Each structure stands twice: as C-alpha cells, then as structure tokens.
C-alpha cells in the first residue's frame, strides 16, 4: 500500500513537471500581453515532429536536443512576429481567437507536410534508449521518462527563476508584466521582452513535448490540444500571469489528476481485511474504476469552480471586477 502511494506521488510529480513547464510559457505571455496563447500546445507538437525527424535521421538525443529546441523556438518567435504583434492590445477575445487560428495553421500545416512526405497521421514515437525502461528503487518501479520529466522540470524551472530574478532582461520582463505602459516609459524595449517570453516559453514547451511524446508513445498533429488545456488550467489554479503560480498550479493539477486516477477503483484495490466491508462497498459505489475516464471532466469542473470562487488563483493578484 505504501509502495502504491509512493508510486502515485512520483506519478503526480512527473505529470506536474510537464504541466508546469507548459503553464509557465502560457503565464509569461499572458502576464505581459493578456494573450491566452492556445497555440502554445502546438509548439509541443512541433517539437515532437522535429524529434521524430532528427532522431529518425540517426542523431543521438544529445545532438537532436539542440535541433528540437532551436526549431521550436524559431516557430514560437515567428508566430509572435507574424500573428500576434499586429493585434497587440486588441480585445482579449480577438487575441484568444487569433491564437486558435494560429493553432489551426500549425496543426494542418504539419498534417499537410506529413502527408506530402508520405507518412501516416499517427506516427509511433522513436523514444531514445536513455528514456526507455524503468528504474527500480526497492519494490518501487518508476519509468525512466517520469524521472527525467521530474528532473527536467525542477532544473529548467530553477534556471528560469534565476533568469527572471537575477538578469536585466528577466527584470524587464517582470516589469512589463506588472505595468506595460510604465515599463515602456522607463525605456524597456517591449518587443524584445515579448520575444524573450515567447522564446523561453517555446523552449520549455519543446522539452515538455519531447517528454510527453515518449510517455504517449505516438504523436499526431492534434496532440497539443489537451496538454495546452491542462496547462491553462494549471496556470489559472496557480494564479494567471504569475510564473510561480503557474509552476505551483502545474504540480497541483498533476496531483489532482493522479488522485482521481488513483482513487478510481480503490475499493477493489485495497487488500482483503484491511477495511470493513461497508467501507469497501461505499468506496466501490462512489469511486468506481470507471471514474478514471472522467478525469478530464473532473479537472474542468475544478477549473470552473476556481474561476468563480477565486479567479486570481492561489498566488495571483486580486482580479478587478471589471476584468472578470
């Protein structure tokens, strides 16, 4: 039972790391531009396809990683320059809808290219050997990719926190998020700051996309949609626009999802004799094993509750009434 619990904690931390990596990118851009960039998930997808391309060309993971990250960052920067810069300052919903359109272009562009290359829509992901297999610690078995996700999350988010607190560019980014007009008056180059936010977000999404694809085992052009929704929920739970909040929200969401999955069918999993039969039948009735497939619905219900009860999230500033 303890092993089961520890295993679930590890799962939660690894899922949480991926969500946090994605949510941070969303939160940085939102903090500065008030743009919810739904095409952020498609950057993950781009990264996955670049990985298939570069790993398939025989590169090792160490050699492929720069290609993947640089390629994804380039797409992120292009998307900012071409689609988002012209509508900067537009109403929230106009920007949100534009990001959906950008997503459609990336998805269908990828689809088009894979078709032209004679590849199927669904591609098996060539996981590098380093990330395959499991690690055994005592009685606990953890997939290597989960360990890698956890450490990638911790290390990259740590570096990000150094960047935003210790460097000039990082400080300008926080200043721009705090008050864009004032930051501009203080001589901060807004275009540069926005481009930096997009670049960092895309870089983190590239790593998340690689790890996510290894876990999923297969990729397709629409794979980014669910992760970006989850990342968005994570960012809202933590406090939208706040980087620390996005990280926290990512781990909270990871824990929440693993909790729903782990509690599903718990009544059948408990060893015989460990709980009274009434408790067991109660658990079987209220937490049936089928609950796991309702996981996405559960997290969205949580999202709606957060939006209504505490729209500023766990760490966010108070949201003014007229912004709601």
């Amino acid at each position: 039972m303890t092993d089961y619990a520890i295993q679930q904690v590890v799962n939660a931390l690894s899922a949480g790391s991926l969500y946090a990596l994605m949510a941070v990118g969303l939160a940085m851009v939102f903090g500065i531009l008030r743009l919810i960039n739904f095409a952020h998930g498609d950057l993950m997808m781009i990264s996955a396809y670049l990985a298939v391309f570069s790993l398939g060309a025989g590169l090792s993971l160490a050699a492929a990683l720069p290609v993947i990250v640089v390629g994804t960052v380039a797409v992120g920067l292009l998307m900012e320059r071409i689609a988002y810069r012209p509508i900067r300052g537009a109403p929230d919903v106009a920007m949100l809808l534009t990001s959906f359109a950008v997503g459609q272009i990336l998805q269908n562009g990828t689809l088009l290219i894979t078709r032209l290359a004679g590849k199927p829509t669904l591609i098996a992901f060539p996981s590098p050997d380093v990330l395959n297999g499991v690690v055994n610690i005592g009685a606990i078995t953890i997939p290597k990719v989960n360990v890698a996700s956890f450490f990638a999350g911790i290390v990259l988010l740590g570096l990000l926190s150094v960047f935003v607190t210790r460097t000039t560019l990082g400080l300008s980014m926080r200043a721009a998020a705090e008050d864009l007009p004032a930051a501009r008056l203080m001589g901060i180059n807004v275009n540069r700051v926005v481009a930096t936010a997009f670049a960092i977000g895309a870089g983190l999404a590239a790593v998340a996309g690689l790890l996510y694809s290894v876990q999923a085992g297969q990729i397709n052009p629409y794979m980014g949609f669910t992760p970006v929704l989850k990342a968005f929920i994570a960012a809202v739970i933590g406090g939208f626009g706040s980087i620390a909040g996005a990280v926290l929200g990512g781990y909270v969401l990871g824990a929440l999802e693993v909790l729903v999955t782990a509690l599903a069918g718990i009544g059948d999993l408990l060893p015989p004799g460990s709980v009274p039969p009434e408790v067991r039948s109660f658990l079987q009735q209220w937490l049936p094993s089928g609950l796991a497939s309702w996981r996405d619905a559960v997290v969205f219900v949580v999202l709606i509750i957060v939006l209504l009860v505490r729209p500023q999230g766990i760490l966010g500033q108070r949201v003014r009434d007229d912004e709601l």
Partner: protein
Amino acid sequence: MSNLRRAGGPLLVIVLSAVALAVLDASGQAFWQGLAINLAIFMILTVSLNLTSGFTGVFSLGQIGFMALGAYISAILTLPLPEKAAYLPNLPSWLAGVHLDQRLGDVPVGFLLATLIAAALISVVAWLVGRVLMRLSGHFVAVATLGFLVIVRVVLFNADSFTRGSRTFSNVTPYTNLWWAWAWVLLVVYVVWRIKRSSYGRDMFFQRDDRSAAQAVGVRVMDPRLLAFVVGAFFSAVAGSLYAHFITSFSPTVFYFDLTFRVITMLVIGGMGSVSGSILGSIGIVALTEALRRVEDATLLYGLSQIILAVIFIVVITIRREGLLGQREVPLDRLFLGHGRAGPAPPAAPPAAPPPPTTRAEETTSTP
C-alpha cells in the same frame, strides 16, 4: 401602409428563397440539396452564436456542446423501437419504450416533438450553466465555456448506455429535409432579429460596449446575458437535432473544436452583432469550404482548406476587426421605400440602422 412596405423587403426574400427551395427540391440534385441543408444548419449555429456572443460580448466556446447534446437527445427520442433494442440495449426502461417516429400524414410530428423536447431540455441545462458562468467576462468566460465543451465530450464518451460511447451512433431516420432546415433558419433569424430590436437586445449591446456605464444607469447585465445564452443554446440544440437527422450517423468526436472554430469564423467574418452578417458569413464560408474541399480532393493536399480559413480569419481580425458588417444590418426593409423619399419618412429609417455614431466610433478605434 408604411409598415406593409417595410415588411415588403423581407417578404420578398422569403418568397424568393421558398421558390428557390421548391426548385431545388423538385430538381432531385442530391448534392446541392445536401449542401443547402448543411448551409442551413451552419446558419442556425452562426446566428444563435451571434445572439449568445456577438450581442453580449460574452464569448461562448461551449455552443457546440449544446448542439451535441441536442443531437444525441433528439436522436435517442426518434429512434424506432427495433433499432433502439438492437443499438441501445442498456437504455433505462422509461426511455427504452419512447419512440417519436410517428407521422401525421406526411409530416413527421414525432421528429418535431423530439427536436422541441431536446431544445427545451438543453435550455434548462443552459439556464443552469449560464446562471453560474454569465458572471464571468472576457477570456475567463471563453475558457470556462470551453471547459463545458470538454465536459460534454467526456460525458458523451462515457455515457455508453445512452450514446454508445465512442462508437458511432447510427441508423437515425433521415427526417431532415430542405423544408425543415430552412423553416428553422427563418424562425431563428426572426427571433434573433426581434431580440436585437427589443429593449433586452439594446441592453445586451449596451452592457457589451460599456459595462460600468450600463450598470451606472441601471441597465441589467445578468438578465440579458442569460437570455442570450439560453435562447442561443435552444437553437444550437435545434441545429444539433437537424444535423443528427440529416447525417444519420455520428460520434462524439464530430462535436468538438474544429466545428466550434468554423462557426466562430463565420460569425467574426460576418460581424459580431449583425444578423445579416452571420447569414452572409455562413454562406461565404460554407461555399469556400466546399470549393476548397474539391481542391483538396483533386490535389490530395488535405488540411489546406483549414489553413486558408485560419489565414482569412487572422487577416480579418487584424485588418477589419468588426467583420463584414460590424453590427449593422443589410437594410432589406428599405428595399421598397426608395432613397429619394427618405427625407419625409424619417420614422422608418432609425429602427433599420443602429445608432450611426457608435458604429463610426468603433470603426475608427478598431482600425489599427
């Protein structure tokens, strides 16, 4: 006299459309008939989304969720008993015996009843959801309603005994024909147009343009939003029912983001707040999609049509954010009045056009 004349334009359009439909119906051209029904369904969706989102500024991404529920509920209701027993063996007994496949002469009244029941049920759902969500605005409400769409999808996938889960729901009787589809179009256009001209409609636009000012002078915010949300959901469910009895087999995957985005494109291109804009927008996008589909089939460049639609969307939102018509309407009612006599008959003109100063102001502020 002047009322009669004002009704002349719309009546003329209705009569011409009816003649066109009759010709199309008699022609036996299955392809064009299908396209016309498809267009009608998109028109209902776009006009009702315009009411929900364009009029009020409360952007809902959950509309296709209402459509999906409407499609499934009405299809379950009209399924004849033998099919029901074969395809949905696990339906609860109170539902298993229901079969609204009755006809009154030539008219499938059961289908009409099923559509109305589905739409009424969905309105109740929308009222409950709206009570909670209409408190939000801007992108918060967009994302919360997107959450609703995802929840509906999860429910449809998991409620196996009602929906067959991820398997295709098939053998729905093809009741939807040109007349049903276009009669509903007529009704939704009329209702939404009347709402736009009502005091509720003016409240919707007012609280959209300046919520603080609206509240300061005592204009309701919640009630008009909720009305728009519920009526929009009603007609979305109708569109779902028409779709279900047109396409006859479908699965939950259809009712998701691609469809949502397509309807939004029609709305934004036509103009948020303009009923005639939504009609033109849906005609334009349906025609364009159909043309691009043929290009895709010929060149095998699948995905091209959606890329082009998305690019058009971005260009419109960047260059002309208010869309084709903004919130103005095509002045059909002035068709017979003649421009020369506009001077002596000013009472006829103002209700036909929205207050010009606001549209002017919008145009100048929203052009970057």
